């Protein structure tokens, strides 16, 4: 639905996005991950035709954003929830958006209720809490009932209940067959929501894959084994193809073998085991690992200039 091809954006001498290509599929939540300044917001602005790419292109449903006849019905976006005029009521704000986008007026009441703002529709937006701003931004994005949704850091400043609400909402929207693209630098947030991830660092693509695959880093997913006869066990495990490293506390970190296999092998060889724990890599760890690598591969980039 959203296809970026060799997308590049430079602001003066800063390269915000660098040769980025991806193709977002409908029906899944795609997480857009990257550290601060990686170029996530810039990419989203280019998708929306707000910032013009220096080179390359991005299309929505095969069309350039500018050529969409009624963009609000095609793409709903939440970029910066606080970028609204505080002197207007929530209702009036959504009313002008609906008018501009060709959406019937009754939809305004519907999205206000959907976002849990029905009771504060006539309050000035300036008096809203950050969470209420986010809800208003999401109501705005949903106004046109669009098949494509872009959210830039939607859980920013939300309380746990709000985070749960957005998670559920995003998954529901994807389940309805929509394309949902959500940026975040909160990795564990994506772990709960996204099925697919596009990861960028310094504007460049680092990974574009299912989230499970992204987390399956050999060095990060392992089985933790504590044994009084660790040395002998390590030799046994290494003998059948396991990769074993010894931690500072004497525990073994084993990759290449799963926990049941390790337990069976230990029993077979009469070696006691006090602890046997599969450690699943957190997205956080996988992310840190990948983005650190992306920086390491270009150690002289800064000095070259």
């Amino acid at each position, binding site marked *: 639905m959203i296809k970026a091809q060799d997308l590049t954006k430079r602001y003066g001498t800063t390269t915000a996005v660098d040769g980025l290509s991806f193709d977002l599929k409908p029906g899944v939540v795609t997480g857009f991950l990257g550290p601060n300044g990686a170029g996530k917001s810039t990419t989203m602005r280019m998708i929306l035709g707000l910032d013009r790419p220096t080179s390359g292109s991005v299309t929505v449903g095969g069309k350039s954003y*500018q050529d969409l006849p*009624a*963009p609000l019905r095609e793409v709903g976006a939440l*970029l*910066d929830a606080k970028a609204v005029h505080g002197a207007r009521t929530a209702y009036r704000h959504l009313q002008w958006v609906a008018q*501009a*986008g060709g959406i019937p007026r009754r939809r305004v009441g519907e999205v206000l209720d959907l976002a849990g703002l029905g009771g504060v529709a006539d309050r000035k937006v300036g008096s809203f809490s950050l969470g209420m701003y986010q809800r208003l931004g999401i109501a705005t994005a949903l106004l046109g009932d669009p098949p494509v949704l872009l959210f830039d850091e939607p859980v920013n400043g939300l309380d746990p209940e709000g985070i749960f609400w957005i998670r559920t909402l995003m998954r529901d929207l994807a389940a309805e067959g929509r394309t949902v693209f959500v940026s975040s630098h909160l990795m564990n947030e994506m772990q709960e929501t996204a099925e697919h991830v596009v990861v960028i660092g310094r504007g460049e693509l680092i990974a574009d894959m299912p989230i499970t695959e992204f987390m399956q880093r050999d060095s990060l997913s392992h089985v933790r084994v504590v044994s009084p006869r660790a040395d002998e066990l390590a030799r046994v495990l290494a003998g059948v193809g396991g990769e074993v490293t010894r931690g500072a506390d004497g525990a073994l970190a084993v990759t290449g073998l799963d926990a049941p296999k390790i337990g069976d092998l230990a029993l077979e060889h009469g070696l006691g085991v006090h602890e046997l724990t599969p450690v699943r890599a957190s997205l956080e760890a996988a992310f840190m690992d990948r983005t650190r690598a992306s920086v390491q591969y270009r150690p002289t980039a800064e000095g070259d200039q």
Partner: protein
Amino acid sequence: MTTLVGNTLPAEWTKLRSVRSTWVVIIAALVVSVGFSVLFSFLTEANYAGLPADQRTGFDAAGTSMVGMNLGLIIVAVLGALATSSEYATGMIRLTLSITPGRGRVLAAKAIVVAALGFVLGTVFATLAFLIGQAVLGINPAVPTLGLTGPGVLRSLLGWGVEMAAFGLLALAFAVMMRSAAGAIATTIGLIFVPAILGAFLPPWAQSHVLAYFPASAAEQLSTAQLDPAAATYLGPLTGAGTLVTWVAVALVVALSLMGKRDSG
């Protein structure tokens, strides 16, 4: 398919009327435009006998009853600037442009709303000031007064509508160019007062060849009922209107080209 008339225009009108500041500014413009005019009419009527003889022989009854309009003009220009600068200040312009990617259409809708509002306010304020002012002047039987059919009166009333619309549009264009209310308002006020302040100090050729073509003196050719063809800045209503329209058109074209070139408008 969304359109200028069906979508963008109503949306811009909703934006403008749904913030209280718009109405505060309109009421302030009304008070200043009409209030000062009426006050000045009272002062003139009471002190008429004390005026210099030449001011009494060529007495400008229409101009006297509308002196406050020039101050109201500044306030209406502020309205034009606020109509867009607040969107740049809050960042809401991104929402506007993502709903309506055509920069030209967004600017056209804003311009139409500002121009229509400026025209209505200018005409209504001028008419109120004129009618009340003439009644006040008439308290003193020695003061010659005018009716709506007096020489140049209707042109003057509509001329105020045009002048307020034009300065609202100039302020709008400057606000888009500078993305700042303060800069746009300062520039517009400067343009309004340049002729008034510099006028007397410039040599006659500069007055008639340069100053006359500034927007405020060009607009005066429409909004002043009793024009003096001997004045250095005299252009006549038609040339004045053409000059004013050119200013507004150039300003809007520059604003549009900047919107097209800049990221996020």
